[in-house]
């Protein structure tokens, strides 16, 4: 209850949550709202928006329904954003936990790898990975996961290092508990709230990355996505502004919603931190 009160005290967080609920609802009901395949031609090409109420957001260069594309694209964006964040957490948390818990040479080695992935221009690396392994939902998700894990590793490392010195961890060591069970049962559960905050912000940047990749033509060729819609409409921006405008608004609103939620989660889960900041 206390958590919800603190979360709700941040107006931005509430707005973000409402926005996200709407977007998730649209994504979930897309097959019901728009039973047609979003790739199917349904009307004449270049139908401007708000003219034919059956296709309220107009049609694209080959007569596909823009609104249907947006609804189906929401599924792809949310899915890729979520799964690639999970992938990044699955790489970053073990790296950070091992480095922070064992310290010394293990820490040195793991942090070198982390630094390497932080130095390499991440978007360029994502492009190279997706291009070489051929665009598909799997390669896109993996590429985003691979370029986004270093901040997680750093965060977890810092948390684990400070928790490692706590008395209850020393007690667990004295009890003879094994390192994996101490890390999994004693240390990580206490580091969970900053990880949750970071994960919610990571979903937002993963959605931005996914849209950028599919804008460049590196989207899954079988799935309609917002970035693809904008990329396909890029050359006809003079004739048909709505083709790039609406998908862009969808991306901005989704990313904004997630960022707002992340910030307010931060306020709610780390009350000490946020009070110090304001």
């Amino acid at each position, binding site marked *: 209850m206390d958590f919800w009160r603190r979360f709700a005290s941040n107006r*931005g967080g509430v707005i973000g949550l409402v926005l996200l609920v709407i977007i998730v609802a649209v994504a979930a009901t897309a097959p019901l709202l728009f039973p047609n395949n979003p790739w199917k031609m349904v009307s004449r090409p270049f139908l401007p928006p708000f003219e034919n109420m059956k296709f309220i957001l107009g049609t694209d260069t080959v007569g596909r329904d823009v609104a249907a594309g947006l609804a189906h694209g929401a599924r792809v964006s949310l899915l890729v954003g979520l799964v690639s964040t999970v992938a990044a957490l699955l790489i970053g948390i073990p790296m950070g936990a091992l480095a922070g818990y064992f310290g010394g040479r293990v820490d040195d080695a793991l942090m070198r790898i982390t630094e*390497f992935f932080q*130095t*390499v*221009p*991440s*978007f*360029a*690396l994502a*492009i*190279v*990975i997706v*291009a*070489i*392994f*051929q665009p598909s939902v799997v390669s896109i998700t993996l590429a985003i996961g691979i370029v986004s894990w270093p901040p997680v590793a750093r965060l977890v490392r810092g948390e684990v290092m400070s928790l490692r010195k706590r008395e209850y961890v020393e007690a667990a060591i004295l009890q003879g508990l094994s390192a994996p069970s101490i890390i999994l049962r004693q240390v990580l559960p206490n580091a969970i709230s900053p990880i949750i905050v970071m994960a919610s912000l990571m979903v*937002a940047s993963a959605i*931005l990355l996914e*849209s*950028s990749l599919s*804008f*460049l*033509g*590196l989207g899954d060729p079988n799935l309609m996505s917002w*970035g693809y819609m*904008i*990329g396909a409409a*890029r050359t006809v*921006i*003079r004739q048909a*502004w709505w083709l*790039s*405008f609406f998908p*862009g608004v969808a*991306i*901005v609103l989704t*990313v*904004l919603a997630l*960022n*707002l939620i992340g910030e307010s989660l931060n306020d709610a889960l780390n009350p000490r931190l946020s009070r*110090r*900041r*304001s």
Partner: protein
Amino acid sequence: MKILTRIVGRLVKAAVVLLAILVLNFLLIHAAPGDPAAVMAGEAGATDEMFLAQLREKFGLDQPLHVQLWKYISDVARLDLGYSYRQQMPVLDLILDRLPATLLLTGTAFAVSLVFGVLAGVLAASRVGKWSDTLISSVALLFYATPLFWAALMGVLLFSVTLGWLPPFGYETVGSGFTGWRRALDIAEHLVLPALSLGLFFTAVYSRMTRASMLEVSQMDFVKTARAKGLSPAVIERRHILRNALLPIVTLAGLQAGQLVGGAVLTETVFAWPGIGRLMFEALTQRDYNVLLGVFFVSAAMVILFNLITDLVYGIVDPRIRVQ
């Protein structure tokens, strides 16, 4: 002496990272589905067996992996990044040809976003909680959520298509025959939209960083002391808070500048800007993997070089940063 060992240490570290990128490149091309020769030639279908056999022999693809890796690394060390069979040109020449345009674009975008970002952040921090702070923070949040390529397209729509103020694409007016200052002005006109749209996201990043950093420093004891001494708030803000808040921002910004190179792929694609980002996009559509990996390597090298410079300069400016 100390500074010399520091520089050498950094150089060694940079070289190790470069080497690791080469190994990564090598592994990627060999992990790709299909024959590496076909991948390198950009022929996904592998139609011409003769040609592929030739390639295999030329690149020593019939030899064990470690021999190939060594050959690849020594090639790059001799500045040979391979050959683009699509463009019939060495990859390095293609990249060097396009590099100046990218440096101009990313350099301008970096300067613009740093100046605007820091100004906005300082303004917001000095009016924390007031409406101007709310406004700046909200706009920053909005820009932070805006995809680069969409900002670029909307910029074209507004300023070129609708208002007709700025050219929508290109590096300069083709066939204008401008020279000297007239040409510089023409290029600058073409630069405005790409640089602003590339810088937009980073302006948001830097303004958020500046605001947070200013607020953090303003809580510190030496600021309280300055207040207790009775210094005017404006002096405290400028001399005590800003100076101390700025250094970590500029350092961080320098380290983040690498992301600009990635963003340039998107901006250059939208604006048909003849830089290495556009080259990367063309390589993508043509499946020209030698060029793709070459651009990736060069952009990573640029980032490393930039980090090295930032690191050394700030080590001199601020003794506290001199690590180890």
